């Protein structure tokens, strides 16, 4: 770090020494073509140089230019860029026209330097602040949901404080992380995006595919998300703007999304006509005389339940409580944001503060709370030397639901399994604590979720600082030298507390827990130092840009984890108060990488476009013999419409790119490792691999851009990627002692079709309507696997066996047993002497024995092999057939309406939640009460479908959904309307209603078809990876948020 300071000073020194050339002064005024009003903040730059300024509040500018300056370039967000000859004049005025299809929008990610969209030769999508502000997402990851083709953002958990999962053009790794590389204002983000607030964001650019991301090398195989925050420099010179935004609302789960449960059982009642009054009076059970209320646990109950003769779950309970309604509540949601931005002559700054709370929907749980402070400053030390600083400081706290065991579902499991005739709100008879821990005598394992929520506390505190500091020396009109230091520093403090005295089940009956306390601390500091030379030069009709850069990355993480059992006294969550066993672990990770790259961009006459780049990455993560790896790209584009005038077509471009990027191995992968037990390194784990390389994604993409009829714009891209040298954990013969070795041992192929269509349907003075549609379709196949085929999936509860990785197989296929659905399917496995006429297809569509419907003999039949064993095969595919996003902006006078629908068609989810519910016959499917007598099925039938939790085709569900993802209605008053109010103090007032995740249309029977699980902590688990799986097993459900918003600008 010290060295970078010296470096910055050096730039300063040289910069101040720079020579001044002969100059003249140009002045002018910029107005808009639509309303003729002046436009403040327009950038005015001498073409081919870095000499420039922005217009002031009156839309005027005064710029000192070199004597030989020929052309001025005027640019402004949302307007077409103008180039005007200076000639001999000293006054140059400009009239700006709206840039309907954002052809002039400048992209900075994945290219040499700021490049207009129309001149892009690779795939980079951008969402600007205008779109982000319609429905400000709670964090940066959610903000791009449904807004970009090929970018799938999934809220795999509704848990407040968790970031959504972003998958760009599918996964590129079978075992490693699928996360893209995140960069905020030049800082590589090592932690979560959950803490980055959207109010500060100016734009999010997503670099898609290996060719575009080649510029980012060995960390960019999954694509790159580049976030740029707001700065004062976009304001007019001399302007100060204060923005205050307040939003208040609620988080809630709509009741129609609750999981439907059975309200009847399959046990004999003492009196079939009367289920009982205070409790369900089962036959075969003797209740004590004083037994009252629900089915609370009572040791003096004797006997056992007897199955009803007909085995139909159509017998009533004494009463029905909706346990889900007891556990879910409406949580508070609010955001308070203030920012102050200013642009003075030599300095511009933006200072902001945001406070936000999202309580979530679980009783007795605080949810997520965050405070972010930001300051962004640019200062011109001299005409040629600019210093920039961006700094975010913040903290967040997340309360996770107590009693939620990460791997077992915990409260989300219990709440569905507890019988409906028990009362969660009754106190414990043992000690009077609220929420009876064992409210149901018949649930021998399921506890009262409210009790766990009231007792166990889990809290994660995150403190973070993200900063970048750079110096830009505009050395000549063709060269900028930039030095940058950027860092991400986070502290995570996690505690988990089970209080002494909490009731728990023991061997026989309840006992008091002695308490448990866990403290996990993590300290992460990662920084980069980068030295970049930006060049741009025009040679006659050929414009060239180049960037040469050296990037140093240094990542340091350490953590410690202490667990203690048995407190000496109550209510003392402190490790100091532990009398029992304690265990302590610590970990250090240190990663150093060096990267050198160069990119050269060519633009001939603004119509023939090309770029070439090469990058060399060296990393301590690579095996000893493979320390350096190259990446490259070539791309080209041709703007046909510049050469040919095509009727009705304003812009037509074709482009192609070919390039490589990769994924680095995990920290531990190259090493020979022993794992410690009790302080001794007794477990040989992985055999080292000095030849371990990063994986390599090679992509070829072609794209077409066409804008037509002055209304419509279409971008279509086809990309094919092959990722080979996949980093895989290969099992070894056990007698080696080492279990595994990380090897480069697989390849994955992806084919992507994506399209973006925008229509400016109506553009009247008072009424405007813009509509856009994004579409993508992604297919992935494992093309090579050099280790034995293996199962994978989320960790815990044997869910890691739901997916299967095998050569030639679709990536994301669900693997399991199949229940036959037609007699044709049955024919090949019919036993000798058996007849097809002995079978029929039942009302659910399954093959069963003829005449067995409604009896205990009605059972689905599995597909069997020639030996009579169940065949395991593909039973589902989690990849959607395609996905659409449909966004609309309508405005009439001062009222605007925005809504975004997200449609995912096809693709399956494995619904383990539902399957478990078949175990205890709690799922609505099992309830036979409302069924016609000839349609009733026995519980034996449902148990056969449950099949002791075997992964089978019955629980594969279509995950098609349409979601009304975002909706906002605003009433806006601009400066002109407010000039007569409060002496013109207010420049803008915007008031409205905002909805997030408002409606879901789906046939999926779980809480949400947009569900999944991410495995974290990949380091020591065999097949554990930070991968995303579409698997539904008791996560925190997604919920909706409805709020009111008021924004004041002055």
């Amino acid at each position, binding site marked *: 770090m010290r060295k970078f300071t010296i470096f910055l000073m050096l730039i300063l020194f040289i910069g101040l020494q720079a020579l001044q050339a002969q100059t003249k002064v140009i002045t002018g005024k910029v107005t808009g073509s639509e309303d003729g009003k002046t436009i403040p903040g327009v950038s005015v730059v001498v073409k081919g140089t870095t000499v420039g300024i922005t217009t002031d509040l009156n839309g005027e500018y005064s710029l000192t230019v070199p004597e030989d300056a020929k052309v001025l370039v005027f640019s402004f967000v949302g307007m077409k860029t103008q180039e005007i000859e200076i000639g001999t004049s000293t006054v140059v005025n400009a009239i700006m026209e709206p840039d309907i299809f954002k052809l002039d929008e400048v992209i900075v990610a994945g290219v040499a330097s700021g490049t207009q969209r129309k001149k892009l030769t690779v795939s980079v999508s951008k969402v600007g602040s205008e779109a982000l502000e319609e429905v400000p997402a709670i964090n940066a990851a959610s903000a791009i949901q449904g807004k970009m083709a090929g970018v799938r953002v999934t809220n795999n958990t509704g848990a407040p404080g968790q970031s959504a999962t972003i998958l760009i053009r599918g996964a590129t790794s079978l075992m490693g992380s699928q996360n893209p590389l995140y960069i905020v204002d030049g800082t590589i983000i090592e932690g979560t995006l959950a803490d980055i607030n959207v109010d500060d964001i100016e734009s999010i650019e997503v670099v898609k595919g290996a060719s575009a991301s080649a510029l980012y090398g060995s960390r960019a195989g999954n694509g790159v998300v580049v976030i740029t925050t707001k700065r004062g420099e976009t304001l007019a010179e001399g302007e100060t703007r204060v923005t205050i935004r307040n939003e208040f609302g609620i988080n809630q789960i709509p009741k129609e999304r609750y999981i439907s449960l059975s309200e009847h059982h399959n046990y004999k009642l003492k009196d079939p006509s009367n289920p009982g009054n205070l409790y369900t009076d089962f036959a075969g059970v003797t209740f004590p005389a004083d037994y009252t209320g629900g089915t609370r646990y009572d040791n003096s109950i004797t006997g056992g339940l007897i199955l009803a003769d007909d085995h139909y779950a159509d017998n009533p309970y004494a009463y029905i409580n909706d346990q889900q309604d007891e556990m879910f509540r409406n949580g508070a949601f609010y955001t308070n944001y203030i920012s102050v931005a200013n642009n003075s002559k030599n300095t511009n700054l933006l200072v902001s503060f945001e406070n936000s709370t999202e309580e979530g929907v679980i009783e007795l749980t605080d949810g997520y709370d965050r405070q972010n402070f930001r300051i962004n400053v640019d200062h011109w030390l001299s005409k040629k030397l600019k210093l920039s600083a961006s700094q975010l400081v913040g903290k967040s706290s997340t309360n996770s639901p107590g009693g939620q065991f990460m791997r077992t579902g915990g409260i989300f499991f219990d709440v569905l399994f507890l019988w409906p005739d028990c009362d969660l709100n009754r106190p414990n008879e043992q000690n009077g604590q609220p929420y009876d821990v064992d409210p149901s005598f018949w649930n021998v*394992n399921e506890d009262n979720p409210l009790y766990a929520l009231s007792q166990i506390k889990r809290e994660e505190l995150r403190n973070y600082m993200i900063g970048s500091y750079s110096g830009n020396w505009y050395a000549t009109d063709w060269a900028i030298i930039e030095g940058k230091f950027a860092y991400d520093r986070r502290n995570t403090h996690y505690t988990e507390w089970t209080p002494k005295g909490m009731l728990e089940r023991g061997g026989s009956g309840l006992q008091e827990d002695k308490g448990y306390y866990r403290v996990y601390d993590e300290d992460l500091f990662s920084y980069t130092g980068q030295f970049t030379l930006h060049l741009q030069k025009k040679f006659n009709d050929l414009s060239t840009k180049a960037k040469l850069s050296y990037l140093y990355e240094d990542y340091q993480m350490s953590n410690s984890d202490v667990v203690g059992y048995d407190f000496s006294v109550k209510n003392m969550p402190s490790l100091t108060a532990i009398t029992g066993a304690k265990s302590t672990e610590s970990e250090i990770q240190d990663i150093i990488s060096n990267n050198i790259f160069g990119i050269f961009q060519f633009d001939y006459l603004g119509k023939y476009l090309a770029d070439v780049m090469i990058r060399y990455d060296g990393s301590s993560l690579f095996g000893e013999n493979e320390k350096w790896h190259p990446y490259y790209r070539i791309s080209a584009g041709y703007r046909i419409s510049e050469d040919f005038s095509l009727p009705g077509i304003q812009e037509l471009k074709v482009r192609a790119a070919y390039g490589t990027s990769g994924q680095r191995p995990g920290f531990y992968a190259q090493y020979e490792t022993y794992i410690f037990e009790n302080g001794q390194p007794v477990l040989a784990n992985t055999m080292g691999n000095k030849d371990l390389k990063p994986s390599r994604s090679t992509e070829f993409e072609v794209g077409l851009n066409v804008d037509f009829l002055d209304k419509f714009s279409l971008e279509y891209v086809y990309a094919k990627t092959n990722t080979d040298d996949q980093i895989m954990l290969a099992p070894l013969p056990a007698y080696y002692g080492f279990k595994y070795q990380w090897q480069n041992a697989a390849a994955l192929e992806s084919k992507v079709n994506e399209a973006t269509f925008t229509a400016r349907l109506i553009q009247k003075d008072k009424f405007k309507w813009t509509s856009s549609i994004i579409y993508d379709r992604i297919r992935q196949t494992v093309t090579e696997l050099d280790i034995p085929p293996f199962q994978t999936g989320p960790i815990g509860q044997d869910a890691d066996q739901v997916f299967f990785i095998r050569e030639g197989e679709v990536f994301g296929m669900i693997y399991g047993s199949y229940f036959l659905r037609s007699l044709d399917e049955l024919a090949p496995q019919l036993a000798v002497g058996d007849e097809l006429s002995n079978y029929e297809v039942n009302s659910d569509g399954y093959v069963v024995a003829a005449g067995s419907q409604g009896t205990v003999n009605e059972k689905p039949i599995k597909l069997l092999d020639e030996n009579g064993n169940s065949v395991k095969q593909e039973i589902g595919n989690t990849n959607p057939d395609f996905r659409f996003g449909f966004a609309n902006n309508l405005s009439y006078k001062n009222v605007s309406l925005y809504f975004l629908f997200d449609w995912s068609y096809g693709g399956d989810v494995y619904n383990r939640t539902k399957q478990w519910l078949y175990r205890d016959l709690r799922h609505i499917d099992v309830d036979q009460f409302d069924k016609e007598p000839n349609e009733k099925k026995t519980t034996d039938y449902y148990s056969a479908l449950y099949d002791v939790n075997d992964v089978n085709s019955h629980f594969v569900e279509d995950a098609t959904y349409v979601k009304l993802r975002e909706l906002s209605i605003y009433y806006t008053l601009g400066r002109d309307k407010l000039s007569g109010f409060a002496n013109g103090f207010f420049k803008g007032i915007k008031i409205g209603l905002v909805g997030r995740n408002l409606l879901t249309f789906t046939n999926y029977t779980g809480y949400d078809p947009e569900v999944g699980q991410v495995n974290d902590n990949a380091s020591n688990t065999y097949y554990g990876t930070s991968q995303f799986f579409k698997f539904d097993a008791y996560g925190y459900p997604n919920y909706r948020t409805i709020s009111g918003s008021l924004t004041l600008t002055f």
Partner: protein
Amino acid sequence: MKNKKIIFGILLSLLLVYTGCRKMDEVKNLNNPDKVTVLASPEDLLGLSGGIINNWFQTTQEYDCIALALWVAADHGTCSWGNAAMYDISVEPRGAWNNDPAYAYANTSREFYIRLYNVLSLSTDIISQLINEGVVIEGEGQTEMVEAICRFGQGISLGYLGLVFDQGFIVDETVNLETDEILAVPYQDLIAASIGYLDKCIEICDNNTFTLPATAIPGGMVYDQTEFAKLANSFAARLMVYAARNKADNENKSTDWTKVKDYASKGIDFTFEPLADDIVWYSTYQTYSVYGGWGQVDMRVIHMMDPNMPDYFPASGSIDDLPNQGVATSDDSRLLSDFEYKAVCPFKPERGYYQFSSYRYSRLDDYLATWTEPMPEMRQAENELLLAEAELRTGNLQGAIDIINGEPPYVGSRVVRGELDLLPAGATFQEIEDAIFYERTIELFLTGCGIPFFDMRRKDMLQKGTPLHFPIPGQQLDVMLMPQYTFGGVANADGIGTSNGGWNAKSKAAGNYGSTGGGVSIFGADKPLIK
């Protein structure tokens, strides 16, 4: 001029940037040592060897390994949950063991296999340093003690591979993994090799003086060379006796009972029971077999204590159809001290009432309450029973009777804990054998992994179709490019790899809800773990 300045500036800046950076090769893994580091220092070998017994214990007493499956396969305990392959292996009629690497419970045998090899490999690596490299550990008897622990580790890891699997691989300090061809050998060879290692352990103990570090076997008891030798002798007796796959094997002298007698007579006069700390030492086998809602005691065992009680739960599912609502009475006082009546069975009726029971095991309840109790792995009674059987089978019936009756120095759990009548002096061979079998069933309940399974298989008592041993796990067969195979299933009952016997001639057919696949079934876990 200007350009020169720029170039100078760039070069100087770059140089400064680069020299400010750390080098890539400075990075080390400071969390996990490699083999060279692990074995580098003679002193460290001492500490390292201290983890060997723990590693073996945690493998054999692990929920995710084979112990629970063996427990229910022997109809000793019962649990109809799919977890840990318990449902699949205890379903009636018995199906074949599913050795597909994709089987939901493949880890049950795979992890057991791999982790035992881990113990073997660590023991061998340390011995290799001592023997092949001539490393000497400071302190009198320390080098020898470390070797003794490692020989013990080699013995019990290879021994348990031999007890559970049909074949395996023998690797020790004489084998070069890089150059030698390593071929699978049958279980008899694994057992023979394991006894050889235990012999070496005993020999070292007999000729040296040392005290095991307290962490090697925690719990307050001091293991010096004498106690450790006793432990090794008992393990040798255990491995030799339990290795037999069937009655013929057991009785046609393939078990050398004279040698067993020799080992057992020098065996433990204490209970080998490491103290749990719930962090490094714990037993999920002893937890899930007794935790509320999990394992129950098979009615077969209750029937042994109270012959009036049937050996199966009534097919009606009604506890009223059991005598006295399932409350057993017995001359054996352990029925009250070690077992607990439960009027309600936690299992799913749909899975078959034959899995039901009216009793659970309660002798380990203190462990469930505190998690810091001694965990009995080998009771003193076990050694006595091994010795009694050896006396019996070598013709000394009275010697066997004396042991069972607790004549000093023996404890005689039958009399002391069970308060049962003394075996009469004229008891027949069969009566004595039955008494030994009964004691093993009741007194050794939920101690060492697989004891009832091993005991019943050598008497042809495992239900027909139960695998007598397990194939090398499917994943390992794949890795070594060996063909897949398996054991078990009524159709395959050959008495060699699959039981063709049974404990009860009246053995019930499947209940209403038996196996749906009629053979190999592939099930998933169906009960969330408690911790």
